[in-house]
Every structure is written in C-alpha cells, then in structure tokens.
C-alpha cells in the first residue's frame, strides 16, 4: 500500500525545486545557473518515479482507486474545506503524462535555453508549473483544484512572457491571462453555485448527488456549463481559442509542455474529472460535443494556411483538443440519452477522451520540440525561410516525421488508435459532428505534411550562405526527442483505454473496420495532396491561393475572430460602451455628488453668513429680546 505522503510528495517535489531555485540558487549561485536545471530535473524525475509507483498501486487496487485521508484546511463557520488527493486511474494516467513530458522537456531545455540570461528563472517557473499541474491532477475537491487551476494559469502567463522585453511576448502573456480568466470566471461561479446548492466541494460527493438526481435540473446544467467555460478557456476551445496561437511567443519548450501536452489538456481533464456531472445533463454534454467538434474543424482550417511553424502546431493543438472534447461529449450524449449503460458509459467517455490526450501529449510535445530544434538551427519559425533541412538535421527530421504520421492517424502509430475511438463514438451518437471531424482527419494530414515538406524537403530558402552553418541540435535536445518519438509510436499500444474502463482494440482487428479505412484513406489523401503541392509542386500553391482567394483570406485572417474581439467587443462594447459609461458615471454622479456637497455648502454659507453682522450690539439686542421672550413665556404659561 502506498502511503499518502507519497502522493503529496509527487506534488510537493517540484514546488521544493521552485523554492530552492528561487531562494537559494538565484540569490547565491547565480553564476552557475546550470544547477537550477539539475535541481529541476532531479525533482521532476523523482516525481516521475513516485508517479510510476502510484500507477502500479492503482493497477493493483480494487476498482483502480486508492483512497487517501483528507486533511482539514480551512473551517469558516459551518464551511470546512479539505485538502485531499484522489489517486484513481484517470489521475494516475495524467500523472505519468505530466511528469514524463515535463522531465523530457526539462532535459531538452538544457540545450535550448543554454546561455539565456533568465536560465534559472526559466527552470523555477517550469518547476512551479509542474507542481501546480500535478496538484490539479490529484486534487479531490473543487476549491483545491481551482487553486492549482489558477496556479497553472499564472505559470502560463509567466512563461509566455518569459522574454518580457519583447513587446509581443508581454502582450501575448496578458492576452492569454485575460482570455482564460474569462472562462475561469464561469468555473468559479459554477463552484459557488454547486456549493450553495449542495454544501460540498468534494468531487466524489458531487458526482453521487448528480447520479442519484438530488443535484439536477437547471442548477446542474448551469454548473456544468460554468465548469465547461473554464475548460473552454484553458483548452483554447472556440470562442476563447485566440490566446493560444499568440502564446507561441514564449520559449518553444514552454509551448511543448504547457501549450501542447499538459496545461491546455487540463480543460479536457476537468471535463473528464467531472464527467458524471456532465453526463447527467443532456444540454451541458451536448454543448461539450458541439464546441469540441466545431473547434476541431475550425482550428484545422486555419492551420492550413499559417506560415509560422509554431502557429500551425498551435492551431493543430486547438483542433486536437477539440477532438478530445468531442470524444467526451459524444459518449456523454449517448449516456445522457440512455443509449449507453450508465456505469459503462461513464468510464468509456473518460477512456476515449483521455486516451487521445495521452497520445497527443507525446506526439505534440515532440512536434514542438522539433520546431524548437529547427529554430535552433535556422533562427526563424517562418517555414517560407526553411526547406531542405532533412540533410542537415536527420534526427529532427525523422522524429518530426514520426510525430506527423502519428497525429495524422496512420496505422499503427499512436494517434490512429485514439482518433479511431473518438470517430467511432461520435459516429454512433452525433453523426453530424462525425462528418466534420472526418473531414478534419484529411485537413490534419494535409497541414502536418505541408509543414514537413516545407521545412525539411526541397531546397533551403533562407540566407544561402547560412546553409553551410545548418547543424543538428546537441544530444541533450535530440535525446528527449527520440524518446518522445518512440512514445509517439507505442503509446497507442499501451492498454490505457482498458485501464480507464474503455474498450480494448486488437492490433490488426482495427484494420477490419470500414471506419478505419475511411479515415486512413482520407489521411493518405491529405498527405498525398501536401506532397503534390509542396514537394513535387505539380500543383502550384500560388495558383491554388488565387483560385480560392476568398477562402484563403478567411482562413489566413483566422475568420477575423481576433478583429471581432478587438474592434467590436473590446473597443466598442467595453472601451466605448461600458468603460465610457463607467467614466461618465464616475465623472458626473460620484464626482458630482462630492463637488455638489462642497459647492452647496459654500453657496449656503455665502447667504447665511449675512446674518452674522459682526455688530455686537445687535447680538446683545438679540440676547435681550430672547430673555424677554423666555420671561414672557414663563409668566404666561407658568
């Protein structure tokens, strides 16, 4: 049996590393910042080992749940908030994802961030992030979860704005923080709504209440939608997706860890964690499915035309997160409509969504690390200035290719297995969305191989004299990429889905289903089209662009969502409308009140002071008349 302290240690070790770097290394050993990297790697590595221990224990435990004692944290009147951890199958899988990807990214960062003046600060933030993310995964009540939820948001802000001297980075950080905050507001409101109606923050208790039906109706629906709005912000789903592409201003390993593998997946994790609640409300779970399915194709179309390699990957991440949401939503819709057995359906939904999260974490982190490696060599993220890097960077090319095949869903790589699960479930319960995401399979294959061909094939298009200087990245960067590439192949073979209570799939049996063939053919078509356009140039990209000019403009301007927010919501409604109204209110009503009181007093004084003539004799007269009056009253009324 695993002691509770171990579960807490998994969370606390990265925090300890943060403290050591911030309070000891940065003030006293700033001339040797590489120690910060070693401390971070050691602490996260230990967390990984403990997480593996936790995983083994969970596998052995009956029902795949380890019960842990709660600690009382706060008692306010009758309200008591506990700190506790739950280690169940879902948490165990997430622990492995977070610690493993984090560890590999930290090792990679040793090379990527080498010589950066903020080296120690970088690792301090990365430790803080990893700790918060692990806390988020293990928390067993909503308050505790929300605490870490905001913690990862803060780290995301700090790391996007890591190079804060660049104005774009500072702006992107602020934007990410504000946009996710918008979603978090709904999450917080949902937590308070649930507490007001049930008197508990405990996730397990809330699920029981939702399943029994004590918690139901409009309250449940609104609470679930509120929680989902938090997930929409964090996971960059439409309509709060605009922050993620801008977040690419941060260092690339940050994008790999936070904005591809873990933090953005926290939204999916949250929906999975609260899945029994979502599945109890048809409206809420349908919203999840629709938003997920729509975001998947919406973001994929934008990814088609981006020229910045990291932005393609960012939109791809948004699209893949949409897949995960759709996976959860599709099963949830089936459960809510009664098409699926409740107990089986609840586990199946989590399995379908989280399985894709698990696989996506590895191949998407790898893609970002590959983009970082390319940037390390060429100094740019613009694919129009790359090309032909295959010869100079064989390792980067090989790993990037594997990850691209995996995300495109080519059998038997990881992405194939989890994407099949999502397609199959959505086919049964939400056929319209199924059609959308099936098209997205084609789009995904196309935009990924567009990146591959533009970056690695053909001739180098940068400054020609630089082409001799192109070199493969150091081993410390290649090593983690190779490991991730292995994972991007095999992670789909691991029995994650069965472990989470979903369906198992046979290795060759998957090829027997027509659905698999449909998606494989579409993916193949996408790859072939990219090959035809960007490698062989049978079809000129330029002429295509002209032929579909309006659509091209629509995609490349990202459907004008940013402009809509910026010019309409922010400028018109907020600045010109609401803030101007506040300003007028402040100017006229509040200031008017204060100035009015002062002015009235002065004006009144100007008139009333005439009574005070300063003539003592008049005062004397008044006193005398007054006394006479008192005496008269005294005599008359006795």
């Amino acid at each position, binding site marked *: 049996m695993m002691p509770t302290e171990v579960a807490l240690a998994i969370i606390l070790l990265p925090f300890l590393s943060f403290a050591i770097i911030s309070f000891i290394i940065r003030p006293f050993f700033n001339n040797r910042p590489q120690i910060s990297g070693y401390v971070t790697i050691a602490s996260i590595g230990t967390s990984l080992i403990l997480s593996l221990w936790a995983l083994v224990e969970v596998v052995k435990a009956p029902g795949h749940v380890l019960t842990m004692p709660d600690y009382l944290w706060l008692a306010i009147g009758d309200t008591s908030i506990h700190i506790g951890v739950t280690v169940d199958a879902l948490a165990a899988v997430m622990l492995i994802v977070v610690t493993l990807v984090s560890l590999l990214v930290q090792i990679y960062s040793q090379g990527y961030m080498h010589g950066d003046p903020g080296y120690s600060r970088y690792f301090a933030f990365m430790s803080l992030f990893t700790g918060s993310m692990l806390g988020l995964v293990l928390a067993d009540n909503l308050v505790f979860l929300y605490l870490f939820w905001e913690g990862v948001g803060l780290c995301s802000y700090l790391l996007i704005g890591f190079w804060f001297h660049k104005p774009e980075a500072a702006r992107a950080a602020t934007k990410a923080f504000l946009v996710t905050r918008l979603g978090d507001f709904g999450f917080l409101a949902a937590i308070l709504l649930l507490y007001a109606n049930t008197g508990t923050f405990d996730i397990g208790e809330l699920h029981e209440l939702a399943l029994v039906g004590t918690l139901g109706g409009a309250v449940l629906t609104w609470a679930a939608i509120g929680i989902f709005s938090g997930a929409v912000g964090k996971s960059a789903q439409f309509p709060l997706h605009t922050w993620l592409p801008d977040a690419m201003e941060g260092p690339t390993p940050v994008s790999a860890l936070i904005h591809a593998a873990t933090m953005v997946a926290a939204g999916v994790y949250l929906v999975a964690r609260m899945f029994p609640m979502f599945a109890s409300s048809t409206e809420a779970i349908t919203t999840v499915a629709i938003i997920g399915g729509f975001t998947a194709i919406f973001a994929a179309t934008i990814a088609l035309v981006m020229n910045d390699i990291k932005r393609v990957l960012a939109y791809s991440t948004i699209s893949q997160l949409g897949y995960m949401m759709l996976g959860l939503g599709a099963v949830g819709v089936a459960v809510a409509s009664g098409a699926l057995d409740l107990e089986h359906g609840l586990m199946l939904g989590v399995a379908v969504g989280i399985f894709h999260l698990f696989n996506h974490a590895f191949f998407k982190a790898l893609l970002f690390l590959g983009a970082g490696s390319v940037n390390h060599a060429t100094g740019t993220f613009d694919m129009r200035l790359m090309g032909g890097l295959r010869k100079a960077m064989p390792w980067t090319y090989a790993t990037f290719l594997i990850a691209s095949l995996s995300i495109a869903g080519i059998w038997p790589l990881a992405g194939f297995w989890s994407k099949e699960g999502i397609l199959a479930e959505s086919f049964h319960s939400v056929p319209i969305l199924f059609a959308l995401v099936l098209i997205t399979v084609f789009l995904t294959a196309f935009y990924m191989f567009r990146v591959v061909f533009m970056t690695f094939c053909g001739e180098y298009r940068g400054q020609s004299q630089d082409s001799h200087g192109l070199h493969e990245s150091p081993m410390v960067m290649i090593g983690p990429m190779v490991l991730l590439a292995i994972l991007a192949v095999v992670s789909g073979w691991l029995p994650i889905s069965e472990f989470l209570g979903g369906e198992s799939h046979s290795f060759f049996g998957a090829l027997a289903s027509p659905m698999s063939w449909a998606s494989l053919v579409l993916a193949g078509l996408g790859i072939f089209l990219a090959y035809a356009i960007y490698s062989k140039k049978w079809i000129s990209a330029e002429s295509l662009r002209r032929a579909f000019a309006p659509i091209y403009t629509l995609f490349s301007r990202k459907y004008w969502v940013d402009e809509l927010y910026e010019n309409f919501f922010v400028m018109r409604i907020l600045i010109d409308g609401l803030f101007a109204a506040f300003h007028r209110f402040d100017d006229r009503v509040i200031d008017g009140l204060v100035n009015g009181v002062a002015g009235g007093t002065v004006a009144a004084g100007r008139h009333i*002071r*005439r009574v005070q*003539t*300063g003539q*003592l*004799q008049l005062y*004397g*007269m008044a006193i005398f008349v007054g006394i006479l009056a008192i005496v008269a009253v005294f005599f008359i009324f006795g």
Partner: protein
Amino acid sequence: MAVGLEHFLILSAILFSIGLYGALAKRNAIVILMSVELMLNAVNISLVAFWRYVAPALMTGQVFVIFVMVLAAAEVVVGLAIIISIYRSRETVDVEQIDLMKW
C-alpha cells in the same frame, strides 16, 4: 413715606434699563463702556438692598458687591486700553466702523 426694598429695586431696574439702552443703542465705544458700568452698579444696588432687607445677618451681599466693583474696575482698564488701541489704528471709536473681522 418709609423707604422700602421695592424702592431700591425700582431704582436698580431703572438704572439697569438705562444702561442696557446705552449698551445696545450707542455707537460710541466709550459710552457703551459707561453704560455697562451703569448696569453693573444697578446690580450692586439691588444686591446691597437684598442684603439689608432680607438677610442682614450674613455678609454675603456686601462681599458680592465688593467683588463686582473690583471686576468692574478691571474691566474698565482692559476695555479702555482696547478702545485706545483701536482709536490709534482706526482713528474712530464708532463701533459700526470697527468691522475688520467682518466677512
């Protein structure tokens, strides 16, 4: 005709009224000061009269009168000093002209 308490009181009241009239109606500061003296002395008369006719065994009334006289002397000293000082700077003792502190 026997002179009784009420005669003294009537005299006192007449003197007090004259003094009051002078204090409230006159413009000249010195006249006002004189009027105040008149009022004080009117009070003195009634105090002595009350002592003599109501409680002749006690010395209270006389002591009171002595106090009032001392007070009046002091008051006149201060009052005249102020008036002289004002006259030096303003060249008038008309209380209506002395309005430096007025709004």
